[in-house]
């Protein structure tokens, strides 16, 4: 028996809603359009491949049923990327950021692809999260690798899944401010003490979120274990957040011709919001 067309249409509608919902701030951000102008073909290829890996990871650990085969995961990821490209092209055309009459193919492609990568992650999240009818009943018994950490006995896949979801969360939440000039301004004007404060606050936020969301109830049973897991999860969250921040900043050319300190400070500045994404955002999208 095949899936009814109506069901697939509902799926796509959710995907489109999610794509727009999570990435609209980026579609309306100047720096994203500029990045589309100056990105080289090689950078765009790298961006597409990395986004595809992220989609694979997200679909594997959260987006789809845990029993989905890698083939299905790969097929869905391609679909989401295609939908993302179409949405991105449509919106950019609507807000007149692309104009086929006056622009070369390189500019059209650059802008469309950069925006589309953000949109396709939104599509993927929308498809799995905006499912109002089934998510209530479907999520708990399902017990996907992402959610089984609630039982206090996370296994290896669980940690990997957590790391992947942390990256997705960091990209979705941190990505919205990453291309803006404000990150550079903050890091240029911050003194070392401010940067230190930002790093400490990131870690504290991460600890609080991880503690109150993942380990509520498990505290009395395994006090030592919990301490270890909180430390581990916080470290993973913060490292993923910093790594993601560094990659995005590098992609937008923020590391060119700056001193090591400014580059480092930018990572920490973006890291505050990326950590929120990696800890709280991860719980929202799983």
């Amino acid at each position: 028996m095949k899936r009814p067309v109506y069901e697939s249409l509902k799926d796509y509608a959710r995907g489109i809603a999610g794509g727009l919902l999570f990435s609209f701030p980026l579609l309306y951000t100047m720096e994203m359009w500029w990045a589309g102008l100056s990105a080289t073909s090689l950078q765009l290829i790298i961006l597409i491949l990395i986004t595809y890996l992220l989609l694979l990871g997200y679909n594997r650990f959260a987006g789809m049923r845990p029993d989905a085969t890698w083939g299905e995961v790969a097929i869905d990821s391609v679909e989401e990327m295609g939908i993302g490209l179409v949405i991105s092209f449509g919106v950019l055309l609507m807000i007149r950021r692309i104009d086929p009459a006056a622009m070369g193919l390189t500019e059209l492609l650059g802008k469309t692809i950069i925006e589309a990568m953000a949109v396709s992650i939104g599509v993927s999240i929308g498809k799995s999260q905006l499912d109002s009818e089934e998510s209530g009943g479907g999520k708990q018994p399902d017990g996907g690798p992402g959610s089984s950490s609630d039982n206090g006995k996370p296994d290896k896949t669980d940690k990997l899944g957590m790391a992947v979801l942390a990256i997705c969360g960091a990209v979705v939440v941190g990505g919205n401010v990453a291309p803006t000039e404000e990150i550079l301004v903050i890091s240029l004007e911050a003194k070392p003490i401010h940067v230190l404060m930002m790093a400490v606050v990131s870690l504290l936020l991460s600890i609080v979120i991880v503690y109150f969301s993942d380990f509520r109830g498990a505290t009395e049973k395994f006090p030592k274990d919990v301490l270890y897991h909180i430390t581990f999860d916080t470290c993973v969250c913060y490292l993923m957040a910093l790594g993601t921040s560094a990659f995005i900043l590098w992609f937008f050319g923020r590391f060119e011709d700056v001193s090591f300190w400014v580059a480092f400070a930018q990572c920490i500045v973006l890291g505050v919001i990326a950590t929120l994404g990696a800890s709280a955002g991860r719980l929202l999208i799983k």
Partner: protein
Amino acid sequence: MSKEPDNQSEQDNQQGDQKNWLEWAVFGLSLLLVLTILVYLGYKTYTQKPATPDLYVEYQPDPSPHSPFRYHVSVHNTGGKTAEVVQVEMVLWQGGEEMEKAEMQIDFAPQKSKREGWVLFSKDPALADSVVARVVSYKQP
């Protein structure tokens, strides 16, 4: 794909690949789109040569009720790189002397594209011997 209750997901698992025509169509088109883009970008990367911006200016009188001495200016970039902060200068020459100079700035002139704007004079260009427009400077993004 959405998460579904257990009984449903077992059912689905047995027919994991049973996609309907719509899903196959979306997948097919998406795959085609993504692969085309990758191939095109790959080709561009392979054939890419170091390039610089190459700009030229086109202009024509375009008077309006409030600015009778207005010129419509379009800046074309035929080079292989984007130019940033493009300064365009228009000069009215009369008898070997500068009668009036006007400037226009364009934030971005991407490769193989055109950007447009207007330059306004206070004196009548008809009194001048010649009108000259040129790109003065631009910087690397």
